[in-house]
């Protein structure tokens, strides 16, 4: 597909810029304003670098850079294509927003060890972009592991008993699956093909392995990238909710979990190749596992009172949409799942930031406590509602676009049965998200309902918290009106298969 490729250091630099930023962040630990300045500079540079590569990518080119041949025939190499670009854009742009939000959140709650927090946040972003721009399976794995480890101190930031348990679950699931499943699968692929394991648009496994091996590999990869939260390896995600909210927002709604599904997408399209999978008819297996996850996680989400946990289970379900789309293997479904990475990211980060803002302003964590809170925090809950609409897939928010592609993609693939799943899950999504916003503005309690609204009585969190979530809410709407860019990037990936 890639007719032309450019060799440039930019993708490498885009990845490591935040790693380099760790030094100033750590050194400026005593001066919080300068320290956060360093974070912002790095975030903007990163976004700028990613953006600078956009025109070339849109023109159908790819950008490559090889750093190091580390094992015979196997390099640490970067390569930017449509899918990587899409994910890179989402992650790097949302980092800017989250950085601002982190400042409001961390200072608002007077959290300890903020320097460590910002340092590891930056490292995590490096790993995320590294995954996005990885040119081969090996580089992908490298950054995938780096991300698991770099996020551990963030998840366990509070260093209390709860954090320890959450952190344990987190690493147990992520490391055991990656070492236990992905590593052997990767080495098997390497031994079988003897190749560089570079992602290519038609995959490179075709002809090297038989059907049984393909099925085993497929399952190893699918479950191995447990960051995608596919059941039964999803429990780490609710466990990771002990983290401070900015971490949950950026990492567990965007970076980490999307890295999981991104890896799966990459493996399906770049390693196996959709044609090869289609010829073996293997997608269906994964599709039904994903469908199961969607329904079950939505049901669990309904029963959660802790807002962040409910959102976490919602994320588990939404991620499976993406896997489902990838597993359907039809062009439109794959397009849908790629765009859904961005749409869900924007929607879910909004929801998480709202949850965090509520916690900062009022200290409330449970949905049952949020009755009537909309009058005190109108902006937050307005943004929450938009985010909810996007996640459910209702206008005027971007989620609709990707769901549209997923549904039509399912029809293309001839899996009409899955339409029922989409229907059920959309209803469930609405059932667990909409009431929160609704109750906040129209409380059950007549006493609260009778209270008149006035801007003077509002107790919003600090501006650093409110601005980012408003921005992402607006972004969700913009993506509904103008999804062309995303579709174009996704189209670059599936276009090659005709």
């Amino acid at each position, binding site marked *: 597909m890639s007719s032309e490729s450019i060799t440039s250091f930019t993708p490498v630099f885009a990845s490591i810029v935040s790693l380099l930023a760790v030094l100033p962040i750590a050194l400026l630990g005593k001066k919080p304003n300068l320290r956060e300045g360093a974070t912002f500079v790095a975030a903007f540079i990163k976004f700028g670098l990613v953006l600078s590569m956009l025109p070339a990518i849109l023109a159908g080119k790819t950008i490559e850079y090889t750093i*190091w*041949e*580390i*094992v*015979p025939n196997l390099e640490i190499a970067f390569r930017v294509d449509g899918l990587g670009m899409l994910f890179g854009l989402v992650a790097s742009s949302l980092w800017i927003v989250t950085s601002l939000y982190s400042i409001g959140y961390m200072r608002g*709650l007077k*959290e*300890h*060890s903020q320097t460590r927090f910002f340092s590891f946040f930056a490292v995590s972003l490096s790993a995320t972009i590294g995954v996005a721009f990885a040119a081969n399976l090996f580089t992908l*794995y*490298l950054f995938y*592991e780096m991300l698991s*480890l770099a996020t551990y*101190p963030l998840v*366990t930031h*509070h*260093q*209390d*008993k*709860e*954090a*320890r348990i959450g*952190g*344990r679950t987190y*690493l*147990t699931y992520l*490391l*055991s699956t990656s*070492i*236990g499943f992905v*590593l*052997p699968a990767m*080495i*098997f692929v*390497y*031994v079988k093909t*003897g190749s560089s394991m570079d992602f290519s648009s038609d995959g490179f496994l075709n002809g090297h392995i038989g059907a049984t091996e393909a099925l085993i590999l497929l399952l190893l990869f699918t479950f191995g990238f447990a960051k995608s939260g596919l059941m039964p390896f999803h429990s780490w995600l609710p466990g990771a909710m002990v983290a401070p909210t900015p971490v949950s927002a950026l990492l567990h709604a965007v970076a980490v979990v999307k890295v999981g599904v991104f890896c799966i997408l990459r493996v399906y399209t770049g390693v196996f190749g959709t044609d090869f999978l289609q010829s073996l008819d293997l997608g269906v297996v994964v599709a039904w596992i994903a469908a199961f996850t969607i329904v079950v996680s939505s049901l669990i989400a309904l029963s959660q009172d802790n807002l962040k946990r409910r959102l976490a289970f919602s994320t588990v379900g939404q991620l499976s949409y993406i896997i489902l789309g990838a597993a359907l293997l039809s062009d439109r479904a794959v397009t849908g799942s790629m765009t859904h990475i961005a749409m869900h990211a924007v929607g879910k980060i909004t929801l998480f930031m709202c949850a965090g803002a509520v916690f900062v302003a009022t200290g409330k964590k449970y949905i049952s406590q949020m009755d009537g809170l909309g009058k005190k925090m109108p902006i937050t809950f307005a943004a929450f509602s938009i985010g909810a609409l996007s996640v459910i897939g209702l206008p005027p928010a971007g989620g609709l676009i990707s769901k549209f592609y997923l549904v039509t993609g399912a029809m293309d693939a001839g899996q009409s049965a899955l339409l029922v799943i989409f229907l059920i899950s959309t209803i469930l999504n609405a059932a667990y998200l909409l009431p929160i916003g609704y109750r906040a503005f129209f409380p059950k309690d007549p006493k609260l309902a009778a209270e008149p609204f006035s801007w003077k009585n509002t107790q919003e969190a600090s501006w650093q918290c409110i601005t980012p979530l408003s921005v992402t809410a607006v972004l969700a709407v913009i993506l509904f009106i103008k999804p062309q860019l995303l579709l174009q990037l996704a189209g670059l990936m599936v276009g090659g298969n005709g």
Partner: protein
Amino acid sequence: MIEQAPALILLVPFFVSIFVALLGNRFQGICFPLSVLSLIGSVAASVTTLGRVINEGTIRYRLGGWEPPMGIEFRIDALNALVAVAVSGVGLLAAIYSKRAVLAETPDKVSQYYTLFLLLITGLLGMVITGDAFNLYVLLEVSALTSYALIAMGPKRATLAAYKYVIIGTIGASFYLLGVGYLYIKTGSLNMFDIHEQLIARDIFDSPAILVAFIVITVGVWIKMAFFPLHAWLPNSYAYAPTTSSAILGPLMTKVMIYVMIRLTFTVFGSDFAFIQLDWSDIIVWMSVVAILAGSISALAQTDLRKMLSFLIIAEVGYMVGGVWLADDMGLVGSIYHIIADAFMTLCVFLFAGIIFVKTGKRDITALDGLFTKMPLTMVGLLVGAFSLIGIPPTAGFFSKWYLIQGGVASGHWEYVIALLISSLINAVLFFRIIEIAYFGVKPAEGHGHHDSDTHESGPNEASFSMLFPLLATAAALLVIGLYNQDIVAIISSFVSQFNFGVIGI
């Protein structure tokens, strides 16, 4: 000088050890600098030798100018040149670490300690570079005798452990000697390379005596390397020895014995005999699987830090024995690479354990309470070592697993692959248990967000430079070995490729 480099590798520490023994008592201050200097010399000589081997191929050095096969010959090829660099490098780092540790643990025996320390390294280096089977026995005993003494210098429990080691170690060495005797009867030679040539020339591979020799030698070497179930001497010895002793024995003793096993199996008996004629590959790989699992699971049960690490050594020995017996060239490459990588990662974690013991006086893992705040740099060192043992890229441990698993996949030994993965996961559990204690403290606060200032009034309290430097240097070495694994593997391949076996080429 360069011509004599192979001999200098071990002669320098040898002569300095005599010097230390004679003068050390009167001038205690010279022991440490002299030891470090001699090991720097040894490292320089072995690096020079490695350079020559890469450029010129196998070096044959005749000790005292006597002609082989009568005289003792050092025949240095890519394999032992590489291992010699690792051994002398590990020795040097451990020597630097010893500065404070020896003063703290055995203050009244400083000169004796360094004498034995240098003799031990002489013995180990000698085993690596010698080409003579009997000479190897003598050097084996040199290193064994010194290590008994180095272990027995520890506290109460160490003496009994050392005693056990004396008994079992002697059995191992005697077995080896016995096997060499059989080889001598059959071939009339003691030069390893000559033995092989004689075996081929006389075509006596079918002789039961050769089979007996092979079995006896292999079992002897297995005892010495603590291959499960012949490992009983190891855990207590290394756990209770003075920290410098375990920092040098843990990484080197078992690894050098693996080298000896590879050398004897391939150079003396030949791969055709070991893998085609005997065809014991399946059994021994299964034994190594058991060793890996037994070592890892036993490590899980330990709360004593160094004992836990000692059981890990047993698991790692299983890795390497299994890797060799996969009968696949990738497996062999992985095993040899793992000798290097494991020497450094074991050194890394044992240095860490030593620092903790010297600083806190506790051997339990609870000694690590809140260490991230108190000793951040030390923890960085541990993290790299731990990641390497777990097998997280780009540390050296990841790549050794990479090659070993590749060998396992290519030769179809899935049980070995699975054992490796399980052991990686167990290592992850072990080290994250340590990291958790160091990060959260032994009893983390119940409530939300406790603050650093509340619990840790004291700022960082790092170990002294002479302890920290070797730890961090080892950590850096692990990364370098990992990143430059291809160059190392290229050297190894030049050794491995002479044995034409295995499924895939390199």
